[in-house]
């Protein structure tokens, strides 16, 4: 099968969907001539023109708000937040408007839109350009939240996000854009809310998402050398959440580690741990371990940042604790 980068896979998804649906409108800062700071939208302005690939002023609240208005009147906008951290600037339009409009109207309107953004650290971008905020979006009812880890998932999930009639927060990772992976030539979609067993195993379950899935896979490979069989589950979406796939695995392995790059405190790991003990307490042979970023703003200096963000070693240490 051919290989594409994560960025190429995303661009292919956007292109296919824009060809399919003329109502898809892209809005964002520097997404046209420049092609986006991670080059995901490169070439789209030339292909679709300035009406559908719409450069915006640096006004996240304004253009996300405009996207809500577009969505409520028959369009399917894709506002792009250059960095996830800028979501706070547009917070009212995301959390109070997009997420609640359908409910507040008793189902009389819908707000189909894809808020595309990227998050995560590891590049020395410091505290305002490195956050992982999926828990915040997961907490607010009315938003769907997608975090692909591979080029294959990125394409299939983004295509599904465009076919969803609700606000979908599509969260990429800045250190995944150059990663490569198999992406078939033929069209496919991946349903939202379906976790993926990225590696099968029997001794311990590693649940993860976004770039941390790659760490979990590396950790599983290292464990295999020591005779430990780890199952790696990529959540892919936090809303809707595929709890069943996690429960099936935990009932088999009896041990669970949840790893993510967002802060450990109230991260997705806390929710998974709570849900698993509610639904599969009797199957657990060890306390659930959570791996996440330290609860500090993401620091700039390399030795500090690499200590704050979770890596393969943290997952291995946590796994040893649940297996001991």
């Amino acid at each position, binding site marked *: 099968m051919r290989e594409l980068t994560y960025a190429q896979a995303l661009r292919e998804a956007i292109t296919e969907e824009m060809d399919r649906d003329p109502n898809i409108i892209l809005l964002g800062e520097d997404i046209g001539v420049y092609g986006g700071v991670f080059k995901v939208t490169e070439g789209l302005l030339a292909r679709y023109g300035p009406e559908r690939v719409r450069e915006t*002023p640096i006004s996240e609240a*304004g253009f996300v708000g*405009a996207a809500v*208005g577009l969505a409520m*009147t028959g369009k399917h906008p894709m506002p792009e937040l250059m960095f996830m951290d800028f979501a706070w600037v547009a917070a009212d*339009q995301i959390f109070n*408007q997009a997420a609640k409009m359908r409910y507040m109207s*008793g189902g009389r309107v819908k707000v189909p839109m894809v808020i595309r953004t990227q998050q995560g650290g590891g590049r020395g971008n410091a505290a305002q350009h490195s956050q992982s905020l999926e828990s915040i979006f997961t907490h607010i009812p009315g938003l769907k939240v997608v975090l692909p880890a591979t080029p294959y998932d990125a394409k299939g999930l983004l295509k599904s996000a465009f076919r969803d009639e*609700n606000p979908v927060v599509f969260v990429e990772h800045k250190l995944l854009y150059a990663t490569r992976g198999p992406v078939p030539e033929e069209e496919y979609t991946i349903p939202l809310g379906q976790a993926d067993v990225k590696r099968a195993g029997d001794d311990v379950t590693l649940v993860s998402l976004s770039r941390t899935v790659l760490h979990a896979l590396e950790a599983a490979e290292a464990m295999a050398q020591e005779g430990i069989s780890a199952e790696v589950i990529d959540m892919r979406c936090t809303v809707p959440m595929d709890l069943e796939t996690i429960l099936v695995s935990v009932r088999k392995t009896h041990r669970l580690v949840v790893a993510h790059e967002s802060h450990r405190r109230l991260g997705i790991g806390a929710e998974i741990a709570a849900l698993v003990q509610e639904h599969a307490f009797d199957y657990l042979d060890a306390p659930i371990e959570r791996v996440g970023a330290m609860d500090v703003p993401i620091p700039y200096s390399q030795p500090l940042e690499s200590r704050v963000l979770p890596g393969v070693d943290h997952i291995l240490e946590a796994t040893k604790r649940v297996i001991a």
Partner: protein
Amino acid sequence: MNLDNRDLLQIYRMMLLIRRFEEQCVEFYKSGEIRGSLHPCIGQEATAVGACYALRKDDYMTCTYRGHGQALAKGLDPSEAMAELLGRRTGCSKGKGGSMHFTDPNIGLLGENAIVGAGVPIAVGAALSAQLDRTDRVSITFFGDGAVNQGVFAEALNLAAVWNAPVVFFCENNLYSEMTPIGEMVKLEQLADRAAGFGIPGVTVDGYDPVAVYGATLAAVDRARSGGGPTFVEAMTYRLVGHMIGDTEPYRTQEEVAEWRARDPVHTFPQRLIEEFGVSQAEVEAAQAEVEDHMAEVVRFALESPWPSAAEIAEDIFA
């Protein structure tokens, strides 16, 4: 402007309906039938009716938590609106939104909004939608004087200007940013002057004259419809009651309220209809009787409507 007597009577009838509707809301609030937040637009009916009379049913609109008047003037069924306020299943949002979230896509109403200024960019997005569809639909957004100090207001005006979006920014300047004089919060005499900074024309109109409001709005609407872009319309108005129920109003004098009350268009317009436009006393009285009958039906419908069931709680989150 081409308003004939039928139009003028309709404007009067709608102003009176809104007044009666809001007075009924206050009564229901005091009796406990309406809960939560209630921000009556009593005193501001002429801006709502004059402006909405310049719109088509298919034009888009956003408004604020003081938006009952605009919603009704745009065409929201008063019975559905009152049922919503009473939390009933027959309400325009099935009882899930209440006073601050009237929404009706059939009349282009994209929502009142409980966040000051938040409806402004949404209206710009709707205007962009109309522009992309090559229709001559326009979008209007109502907001108060206080909203001009929100960041998103500035962002939205700029977006509309650079996109040449067919939108009318309608500022109801009732002199108070909630419970604080707007003059203490803005350095400009007229808020319409702010539009110039965005490259948008701004006009100020007497918000207590529904005919003048209609004329100013129609000019802005025509401009937007014909591809001329956005306009800022500031209507000088006044709420004759508090910001919300329970407002003790220490920020203004009784004399000031009395001065505006003397000009209350709901009370003064009938005389003007008769003297200036030659409408008959009988026609005015017939309009008044119609409104009373209609409101009786609105109240009956709302009170007799069923409550939503617990099974509906988790419905309408996702499409």
